[in-house]
């Protein structure tokens, strides 16, 4: 019975849906996490009678034909990139991006990673690094005798040294934007990699046309909405149960067929 395998594809699709939702909920407090959504499409159709086929010698055509659907498949799991809420932490190296853009990070193998999680720290050499110790590009070096560090909305890093009235500029942060942000590949640790689908990184100073601003002392929270995730979870669970009901019914019908004498 086709209904058996059609319902099985339905259950597998809802299982994938729940897995995506559970990842969203697990990362509800992850800095700058972007929630994902699973998108489904119908699978295949078996044509019993072709639409528009001739139905008689007079040239009359069949208006709608007979096509039987064979189930569902996942067509994509994409990131929803709306801005997360900004939380004030007061930490001088916590940076949030208000608007589009990613910080560029140098990974241990030399390639570039991109992230919006700006909870940076300073390592033993005074370099601005991520919590894993990866350097923020372009390298920003904070001198150890700096009393105060200010980072303005254009990403300019200024330090206040003892005995000097005017602050000194020690570096300039850069942001990267992409033609297709959804095409970036997630590799964990809040890092994204450039791919062929995302297009090359376009790097510029923050607060220019098309780039967001850098806010010091803030972190960007996740954009996961607890209420909509729970609602989606309930919908997915109900769909899963309904599909399992279809499997049970198909099984009973097969049983009835076998009972015929």
């Amino acid at each position, binding site marked *: 019975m086709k209904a*058996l*395998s059609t319902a*099985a594809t339905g*259950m*597998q699709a809802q*299982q994938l849906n729940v897995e995506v939702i559970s990842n969203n909920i697990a990362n509800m407090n992850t800095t700058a996490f972007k929630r994902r959504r699973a998108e489904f499409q119908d699978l295949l159709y078996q044509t019993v009678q072709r639409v528009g086929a001739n139905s008689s010698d007079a040239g009359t055509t069949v208006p709608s034909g007979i096509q039987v659907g064979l189930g569902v498949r996942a067509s994509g799991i994409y990131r929803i990139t709306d801005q997360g809420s900004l939380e004030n932490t007061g930490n001088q190296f916590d940076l949030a991006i208000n608007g589009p853009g990613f910080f560029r990070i140098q990974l241990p193998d030399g390639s570039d990673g991109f992230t919006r999680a700006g909870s940076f720290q300073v390592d033993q050499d005074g370099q601005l690094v991520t919590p894993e110790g990866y350097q923020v590009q372009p390298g920003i070096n904070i001198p150890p005798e700096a009393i105060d560090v200010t980072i303005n909305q254009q990403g300019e890093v200024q330090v206040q040294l003892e005995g000097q009235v005017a602050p000194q500029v020690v570096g300039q942060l850069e942001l990267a934007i992409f033609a297709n942000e959804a095409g970036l590949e997630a590799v964990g640790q809040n890092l994204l990699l450039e791919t062929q689908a995302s297009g090359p990184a376009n790097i510029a100073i923050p607060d220019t046309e098309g780039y967001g601003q850098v806010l010091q002392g803030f972190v960007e929270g996740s954009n996961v909405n607890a209420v909509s995730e729970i609602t989606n979870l309930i919908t997915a669970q109900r769909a899963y149960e309904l599909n399992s009901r279809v*499997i049970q019914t*198909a*099984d009973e019908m*097969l*049983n009835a*067929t*076998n*009972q*015929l004498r």
Partner: protein
Amino acid sequence: MDNLLYVAMSHQSAMQRRMDVVSNNIANMNTTGFRGERVTFRHHLEELEGDGPKGMTNVNFTLDYGILRNLEQGSFMPTNNPLDVALEGSGFLTIENDLGETLYTRSGHLRINAESELILASGQRVLDENGNPITIDPEDTNIKITKDGRIFSDLGEIARLGLAAFNDEQNMERLGAAIYRTDEPPKDPQDLNVLQGSLEGSNVNSISEITEMINVMRSYQSVQRQMDSVQELRDRSIDRLARVG
């Protein structure tokens, strides 16, 4: 009429074997590194004895053809145990059993035995890239295993895990739950990552197995009905035809 019963019987034994494989899959749903399997069948043609419908010269019996292994990646289960590794991509860990045979596995449940050797939880020694057992002394603290299989401790690099890839993974012989043997010489894996602190679960999908089980059961039941009808026909014909007077 004999053909009817024998064809039905070949189908029933085929269904039993199919059910055996499905139940093995379900039993190993939580076994690390297990890969689900399916039986494939082929028909076996026999000459039709006696008269048959016009144009029909052969009778199709069902015969086993082989087992198809599902080579899909299993899901990762983080365990935070520094000696647990999961393999991402196509490839195997090289191990050696007590008889000295070289075997392969994807189960990354590693432990250290009393002789300080790196072993699987089931006792086989894990081999490095040169085919030697790996020794981890008690002084080697903070074990780190990188993505290409190198093992580091606070004292430096210890060894590199022996990773092997094969062209023909379907024909590898399975011994036990997640251990494989093959005669093909191993080659260097192209895209294999070793992830420390996780285990690769089995790739058995419970929904597919339950649906397969329902299909097998209903198929078995319908052929059983057919055999019952044939039996009844025979009963009646013997009863009527053999009646004397």
